[in-house]
């Protein structure tokens, strides 16, 4: 039997294959769709933030980074965690508070972590990941390593002080860090224009003399191409980049939110550009997959997530001693 570590490495390295990329987009989609039901069943406690519609960004990032690069992302990161290689068992285990979770079930949905895949504990405080990613990049730069760090954050996070400070610091020190703003148009229940004084977050890069790009976050190929440019720049001493990916948050902000504040038809206008749809059509058009093969992959992933859920339903809850582990570093 292969170890957890081997499984995860394989999940990561597989991502060079376009078919696996698509498969894993389905994995994320179905994973997220099931979370909602599990929440209603009372099997997910507290809150949870899903990322349907943002899969191209998840997979694009994981496919371009090396496993020893670091990624700081947010509470809305089931997708990034799965893409980077965390197993659905370890992700769902955490979300359902079981010992099979990536940190043993004491963290929950907002707190996924996979050090061996470069995934920093995901951030529940808006903006906190940006200075910390810059710090990881600082370590790489100071030691002369060829590694980069990435911070993923939302459009709403672009209004918090940590964003500003981190981008300035990264620019002044020319740190190998990539800032990715996942602009899904909403911060909680507020649409971007009600809280944000620019239309494109990428405009703000000029305040830090930093190169920036605006990309279509629904298109996997665009995501990968843009990230490659930024990562290359960072690895070759060119310093930080700000990438703004235009995406859309299909679901509400968190589990209970039905997103009734959205203008009518807005969701519908995005759906024809769904990243899974776009990608599967591209692969079909290119003759890489047939429609039937895509359907099969989709079915397999749906089935596989069902199994993960079954497995996790039966996984044990942590015992009280878990509360006291890993508080103080030995």
């Amino acid at each position, binding site marked *: 039997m292969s170890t957890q570590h081997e499984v995860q490495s394989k999940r990561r390295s597989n991502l060079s294959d376009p078919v696996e990329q698509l498969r894993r987009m389905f994995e994320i989609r179905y994973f997220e769709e099931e979370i909602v039901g599990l929440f209603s069943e009372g099997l997910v*406690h*507290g*809150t949870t933030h899903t990322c349907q519609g943002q899969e191209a960004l998840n997979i694009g990032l994981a496919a371009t980074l090396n496993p020893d690069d670091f990624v700081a992302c947010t509470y809305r990161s089931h997708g990034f965690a799965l893409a980077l290689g965390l197993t659905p068992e370890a992700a769902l285990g955490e979300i359902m*508070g079981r010992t099979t979770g990536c940190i043993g*079930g*004491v*963290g*929950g*949905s*907002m*707190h996924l972590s996979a050090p061996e895949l470069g995934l920093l504990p995901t951030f*529940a*405080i*808006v*903006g906190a990941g940006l200075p910390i990613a810059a710090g990881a990049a600082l370590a790489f730069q100071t030691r002369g390593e060829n590694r980069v760090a990435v911070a993923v954050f939302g459009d*709403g*996070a672009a*209004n*918090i*002080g*940590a964003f500003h400070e981190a981008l300035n610091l990264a620019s002044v020190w020319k740190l190998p860090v990539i800032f990715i703003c996942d602009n899904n148009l909403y*911060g*909680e*229940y*507020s649409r971007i224009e*009600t*809280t*944000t004084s620019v239309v494109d977050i990428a405009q703000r890069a000029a305040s830090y003399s930093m190169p920036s790009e605006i990309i279509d976050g629904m298109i996997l190929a665009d995501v990968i191409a843009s990230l490659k440019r930024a990562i290359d720049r960072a690895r070759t001493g060119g310093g930080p980049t700000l990438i703004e990916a235009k995406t859309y948050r299909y679901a509400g902000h968190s589990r209970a939110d039905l997103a009734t*504040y959205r203008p009518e038809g807005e969701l519908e206008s995005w759906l024809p550009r769904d990243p899974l749809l776009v990608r599967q059509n591209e692969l079909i058009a290119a003759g890489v997959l047939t429609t039937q093969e895509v359907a099969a992959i989709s079915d397999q992933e749906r089935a596989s997530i069902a199994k993960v859920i079954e497995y996790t339903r039966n996984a044990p*809850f*942590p015992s*009280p*001693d*878990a*509360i*006291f582990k890993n*508080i103080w570093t030995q």
Partner: protein
Amino acid sequence: MAQVRFRQAIALALADEMRKDASVMVFGEDVAHAEGPFKTSEGLLAEFGPLRVRDTPISEMAFTGAAVGAATAGMKPVIEIMFMEFMGVALDMVVTEAAKFHYLSGGEFTVPMVIRASVGAGGGFGLQHSQTLENWLVATPGLKVVVPSDIQSAYDLTRAAIRDAGPVAVLEPRALYGDRGPLIQREDGLLEIGKARIMREGNGITVVSMGQLVAKSIEALAGIDAEIIDLSTLVPWDQECVSASIKKTGRLVIVQEAPVSGGWGHEVLSLMVSKHFAELKAAPFIISAPNAPVPYGKDLEELYIPQPAYIKEQIAHYLSTNQVPTPWWTQRGLN
């Protein structure tokens, strides 16, 4: 009497005070159109309009600072920090600015602002969204801190905080937002800031609690001759009330949600011991959460927070032996 939820009591208090005083305004993340992430500002935008009820960017420092400025310029802003932890990015504005502005202006400027923040465990929000953290707001002369424990005190203390001439932090136990019960929607006779509430009189032991632990203490102590005090205001806390009770009972126990180390109970215990040492019949002690992050997961989180059965067991042991009981984590050899 109207039956309302705890969160509605807050919204009602805000509305009632806004009707009375045109200088009261409300802002914070999603408090206007969405009526608050916890629905504590229901109806406000509709009634008072977008000048007085505003959604903010995710910028705790800016909007907390804006409240300081607006208060200084004659408004009475009430702001919402969604989870107490988020004050970690804006503490300067509360502690170093708002609390000190009156002093720094030689008493000429006043900063009548209210900082509402939801606190505490019990919702499954994990270790960065579940702490009480009132320790951030102490050692700060000039800043008052109140903690409602039930529907009436949520209403009363919110109104009293708005009426206060200086800055007041209202720490709302998040776990109570959904509680439902009667409310007296009153103009006068509000609970006062700085005054503790005796929730049940008794002679055998003084139990001082706060926030969501008050109801748990009351439940725990059914059948025990305890005087149960809801501290209600943490800064400045009501030394007279606790003193008077200790004089009567000769025993003091604090029940707190905060962890052992760094919890608010130590100050109450310490100052009361210095004052009433000779009157105490046995060692006072604190029932609290352990020195650990708040765990996710219903069972662990429930264990983490002192529950009625545990409080009862601890106090019963204490009363029968006069000895300070061992906390559960030590009993189980965990810490």
